[in-house]
C-alpha cells in the first residue's frame, strides 16, 4: 500500500510547504516511489500475483482490493520511472518551483498507481475518474490561458466515455453481486450482452487512447498544454486505456471479442494511416507529434484486440516504448517552441548548427520513433504487425505502410526544424537536465530493445492467465 501512500504524502507535503521546497520534495518523492517500485519488482515472482490490500465484500458488493500481476507491475514500474523523468525535464522551467504543480503531479501518480493496482471494478473506475482532476487542473492553471474551450472539450469527451464505462461496470457488477475483479471475470455473459458491456468500456478507452474518430480532443489539448501536461497525457494517461483493455475489458467480456474485434481493429488501422497521412503536411510540430501518436497508438490498440499473448507482448513493449518516445519528442517540441518562439516548422530551420547537442539528441529520439534496429520499437512493431498480418493480410499490409509514412513525417519534421540555413540568430543549447533526460530515455529505449525477450517472458504468464478460458478462472484467482 505504500506504493499509493508515498505519492499522496508527498503531494500533501508539497501543498503545505512553500514553493521553494517544491523541487526538493518532487525529487525525493519521485525517487522514493521509483525505489519502492524497484523493491516490488525485485521481490516479485512473475508466475504469481501480489495482493497489496484486500477486504471482504462491503455494501453494494464493493471491495477494497489492490494487487498486481506481472503486467500490472510493469505498468507501476513504468509510471514510477516516467514521473521522475517528467520532473527532471521540467527542472529548469518555472513550473518546477510551483508547489501546486508538484502536488498535482503526485496526485496524478497516485491516481495512476491506484488504477494499475486496483482489483475491484469500482476502484478502477474511481481512480480512472480521479486522474482527470489533477490533469485538468494542471492544464487549466498552467496551460495556454485562452484555451478554455479546448479544455472543456477534452473534459466532456472523457467524461462521456467514463459514463459509458461506469454503466458497463455496474451492469457487470450487478450480475456478479460484487465488484471484485475475480468475481467480475467469472460472470458468464451471452455474446450480445458481452458486446454491449464491451462497447461501454470501449467508448471510454477509445476516447482516451484516442482511437480514430474519437481523437479530436487530442491535438488541440496537446498544443495548449504545458509540456508536463502533454507528457503526462501521452506517456501515462493514454496507457491507462490500453491497460484497461488488456486487464479489464477483454478478460471480463471475452465472450464478445469475436464480434467486437472487427470495429476496433478497423478503426485502429484507419488511425494508423490517417494519423500518419495528416502528420505528413502538418506544420505545427506539436500537432504533428499528436497525429503521429494517434498513428502509433492505433497499431497498439488494434494489436490488443487480437486477444492473444503474443500480440500483447508486442503491445506491452510498444506501450513502454511509446511513453519514452513521446516524452523525448514533446520535450524537443517544447524546447523548439520556447527558444525560438514558434512551433511552426516553416519558420524554423538550421537549429542543428546553432545547437549541436540538441540536434544530436533530437535526432536520436526521431530515430527511436522510427523504430530503428536495437531500439525498443523495432521488436515491438515487428511483433504487432506480424500478429495483425496473421489476423488479416490487408490489415497487416496497411500496418506495414506506417513504416514508410513514419519515415516521411518524422524526417520531414526534423529536417525542416534542424537542417538548412538558420532562420534565427541564436538558440540556446540543451541544459544539463535536458541532456540527462535524453540520455536516460535513450538508454531505456536501447535497454528495452536489447532485453525485449526478457520483458516478454516476464509478462507472458500474466497474459496467459488473462487470455485463458472462463472455465479455468476459478483455479487462478483464489
Amino acid at each position, binding site marked *: 500500500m505504500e506504493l499509493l501512500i508515498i505519492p499522496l504524502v508527498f503531494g500533501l507535503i508539497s501543498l503545505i510547504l512553500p514553493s521553494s521546497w517544491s523541487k526538493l520534495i518532487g525529487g525525493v518523492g519521485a525517487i522514493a516511489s521509483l525505489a519502492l517500485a524497484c523493491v516490488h519488482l525485485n521481490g516479485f515472482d512473475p508466475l504469481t500475483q501480489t495482493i497489496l490490500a484486500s477486504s471482504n465484500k462491503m455494501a453494494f458488493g464493493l471491495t477494497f482490493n489492490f494487487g498486481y500481476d506481472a503486467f500490472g507491475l510493469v505498468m507501476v514500474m513504468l509510471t514510477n520511472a516516467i514521473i521522475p523523468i517528467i520532473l527532471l525535464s521540467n527542472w529548469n522551467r518555472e513550473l518546477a518551483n510551483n508547489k501546486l504543480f508538484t502536488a498535482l503531479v503526485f496526485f496524478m501518480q497516485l491516481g495512476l498507481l491506484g488504477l494499475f493496482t486496483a482489483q475491484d471494478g469500482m476502484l478502477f473506475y474511481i481512480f480512472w*475518474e480521479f486522474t482527470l*482532476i489533477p490533469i485538468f487542473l494542471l492544464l*487549466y492553471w498552467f496551460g495556454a490561458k485562452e484555451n*478554455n*474551450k479546448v479544455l*472543456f*472539450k477534452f473534459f*466532456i*469527451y472523457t467524461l462521456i466515455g467514463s459514463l459509458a464505462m*461506469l454503466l458497463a461496470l*455496474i*451492469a457487470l457488477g*450487478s450480475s456478479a453481486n460484487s465488484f471484485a475483479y475475480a468475481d467480475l471475470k467469472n460472470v458468464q455473459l451471452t455474446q450480445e450482452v458481452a458486446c454491449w458491456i464491451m462497447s461501454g468500456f470501449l467508448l471510454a478507452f477509445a476516447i482516451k487512447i484516442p482511437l480514430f*474518430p*474519437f481523437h*479530436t480532443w487530442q491535438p488541440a489539448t496537446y498544443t495548449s498544454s504545458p509540456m508536463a501536461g502533454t507528457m503526462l497525457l501521452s506517456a501515462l494517461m493514454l496507457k491507462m486505456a490500453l491497460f484497461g483493455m488488456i486487464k479489464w475489458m477483454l478478460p471480463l467480456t471475452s465472450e464478445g471479442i469475436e464480434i467486437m474485434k472487427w470495429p476496433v481493429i478497423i478503426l485502429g488501422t484507419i488511425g494508423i494511416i*490517417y494519423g500518419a*497521412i*495528416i*502528420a*505528413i*503536411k*502538418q506544420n505545427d510540430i506539436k500537432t504533428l507529434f499528436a497525429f503521429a501518436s494517434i498513428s502509433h497508438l492505433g497499431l497498439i490498440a488494434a494489436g490488443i484486440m487480437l486477444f*492473444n*499473448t*503474443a500480440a500483447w*507482448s508486442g503491445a506491452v513493449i510498444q506501450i513502454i516504448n511509446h511513453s519514452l518516445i513521446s516524452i523525448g519528442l514533446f520535450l524537443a517540441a517544447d524546447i523548439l517552441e520556447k527558444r525560438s518562439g514558434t512551433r511552426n516548422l516553416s519558420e524554423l530551420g*538550421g537549429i*542543428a548548427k546553432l545547437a549541436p547537442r540538441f540536434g544530436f539528441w533530437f535526432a536520436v529520439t526521431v*530515430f527511436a520513433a522510427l523504430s*530503428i*534496429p536495437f531500439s525498443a520499437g*523495432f*521488436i515491438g512493431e*515487428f*511483433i504487432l*504487425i*506480424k500478429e495483425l*498480418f*496473421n489476423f488479416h493480410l490487408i490489415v*497487416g*499490409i496497411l500496418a*506495414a*505502410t506506417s*513504416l*514508410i509514412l513514419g*519515415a*516521411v513525417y518524422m*524526417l*520531414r519534421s526534423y*529536417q525542416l526544424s*534542424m*537542417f*538548412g*540555413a538558420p532562420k534565427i540568430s541564436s538558440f540556446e543549447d540543451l541544459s544539463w537536465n535536458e541532456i540527462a533526460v535524453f540520455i536516460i530515455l535513450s538508454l531505456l529505449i536501447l535497454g528495452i530493445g536489447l532485453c*525485449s*525477450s526478457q520483458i*516478454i*517472458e516476464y509478462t*507472458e504468464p500474466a497474459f496467459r492467465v488473462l487470455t485463458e478460458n472462463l472455465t479455468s478462472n476459478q483455479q487462478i484467482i483464489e
Partner: protein
Amino acid sequence: MAVDKLILILLVLPLLGALVNGTLGKRFSNALVGGIATGVMLVSFCCAVLVFNQTNDTKIIHLFNLLKLNDFHINASLQVDALSIWMTLIVTGVGTLIHVFSMGYMSHDKGFYKFFTYLNLFIFSMLLLILGSNYFVLFFGWEGVGICSYLLIGFHYSDAEKGMANSIAARKAFIMNRIGDAGLLIGLFLILAQFNTLEFTQIAEKLALDPISANGAIVGITLCLFIAATGKSAQIPLFTWLPDAMAGPTPVSALIHAATMVTAGIYLVVRSNFLFELAPLTKDIILGIGFATSMVAAFIAMRQNDIKKVLAYSTVSQLGLMFVALGMGAYTVAIFHVTTHAFFKALLFLGSGSVIHAMSDEQDIRLMGGLAKKLPITHLTFLIGTLAIAGFPLLSGFYSKDEILGHALAHSPILYGTIMISVALTAAYMFRLYFLVFHGKFRGGEQLESHVHESKAIMTFPLVVLAILSIFGGLLNLPGIFLKNGTHWLQNFLNAHTAGLEKIHAEHASHTTILALMAVASTMTIAILIWAYYNYVKKNRLALADKELVGWQLFSNAKLYIDELYNFLFVKPIEYVSKMAYSIIEIKVLNQGIFGFANLFGKAGSLLRYWQTGLLSSYLFWMVIGLIGLISYYIIKLQFWNF
C-alpha cells in the same frame, strides 16, 4: 582460432570502433580516430581471410534467443558459408581500402570523427545483413545500413549552400529504402506463415523435402523480397534515390552506393535462391526489371555532366545487369559481377573523389579536361577502372560481363542482343567521361587550374590496390577455355557451400560460342573506345551546355523526367490527400460536424466562464460537480441493486 570466435571478432570490432570514436572521438586527434576506424577494419578483414581459409561447410553460430513468442522463436545467429564469407571479404576488404582513402579525403572536415563512426557503424550493419542466419537478422542489418546511408548522404547538412539539398537527398533515399523495407517485412511475415521459421537453412530443407512450387505463396514471398531488393539495389521503380545519394561525401558513394550496400538486394535474392527457383514468374519479372533498369540508367548516363552522377547511373545500370543474371537463375554469375563491380566501381568513385579533391570540389566535367598530366596516378588507375567496366579484353569486367552475356545468349538471342546495347552504352558513356576529364584542354579557368594537384599517398594507395584488383579480378572465375582445371573457381566455391545453390547448375556454352562471344564483345568495346577518342579528343567535341542539347540528349540530360513524373504521380497526390484529410475530415467533419462538441461546449464554456473567475470559484465548481457525480452514482447504484 575457431571459426565462430573469428566471426564474432570480425563482426563486433566495427561496432566497437564506432562506439569508441562516437563517444571519445571528439577529443582524439584525426590520426587516432582514422587509425582506430581503419585498424578495426583491417583486423576484421584479416579475420575474414582466416575464416575463408577454413570454410568448408555451412556453419551456424548460435548467439542467443532474440525473441520467443508462444508459436515461434527467433534466434540471433550467424551463418558462415561460401556466400556469406565471400561477401564479408568484399565488404571488409574494399571497406578497409575506402577507410584508408577517407583518412586523406576527409582530413579537412570538422565532422571527421563522426564520419568514421558512421562508416564503422555501416560496416557492422552490413556484416549483420550478410552474416545473419535468418531473415530477421538480415532485416536488422537491412534497416541498419539504411540508417547509416541516410546519415552519410546528409553528412554535410549544415553546408550553407547545399545543406538543405543534401538532407533532402538523404530523406529521399531513406524513404525509398523504407518502401523496400516494408516489402521485406511483409515478405518475412509471408515466410513465417508458410514455413513457421525464418532460418535460411531450415526453409531450404523444408522446400527440398516438399517443393510446393504450385503454391501461390512462393510467388508472393519472392515478389515481396524482390520489392525489398529494388529499394536497396536501386532498381525500377525505386532507383531515383541513388543518383541523388551522390550528395554524400565521395568515399561514401564508393563504399555504400557502389561496392556494398546497393548489392544487398542481389545478396538477398541469391540467399533466397531456393525460393526464387520455385517462382519462375518472379524470375521473369526480375529479368525484365533488371534489363529495363540497365537500359534506362545507361541511357541517362550518356548525357550527365556531373562526374559522380555518371558513375551513379552507371552503378544502377550495372546492378540491373546483375538482376538480369539473377532472373536467368545464374546466381553465382551475379555474385561474380558483384565482386568485380565492387573493385572497379569503388576504384572509379575513389578516383573521382581524387579528381574532385584536386578540382577544389568542382564536379562538373565540362569544367575539367587535360587532368591526365596533373594527376598521373589518379589518371592511370581511373583508366584501368574505365577499361574494366567497359569490358576491355582480359580485365575483370570483361569476364564477369561475358558470363552474363553467355547466359543471355543461352536464354534467348534477343535478350543477348539487347543487353549488348546496354553494354555498348556503358562503354560509350564511360569513355566519354574519361576523355572529357583527363584529355583535351583544361576548361575550368586559370584560377582553378593553379590549384589542381595530385592527391596524397594515403589516397592514391587504395587506388593502386583497387586498380590491381580490377585488372586481375577476372581470374577468380575464368571460363573453361583458358585453363583445363581450376576454371570457374568462384562459381564452384559458391555452389559447393551455399544452401540451395548446390542444386543449380549453370548452363555451359561450348568453347567456340564462348570464344565468339568474347571476340564480339572485345571488338565492340575497342570500336567504341576508338570512336570516343576520335570524337572527344581528336574532334574535341565537348559536352554541350544544357541549352544546346537536342533530341534524345535532352531526355538523357533530364533523367527522362522520372523525378518529375514521380512527383506528379505520388508526392503531390499524397501531400494533397494529407492537406485535404486535415482540412475536410479533421476540421470540417470531425471537429465541426458529427463530433462537433466544440461549438456546443464552446457555448457551454462561455456560460461557465462566469464560474471561472478565480481559484476559489473553480474549486467550488469542482466540488459541486464531484458531489453531483457521487450522488448520482449512489442513486444509480441503489436503483440497480434493489431493482
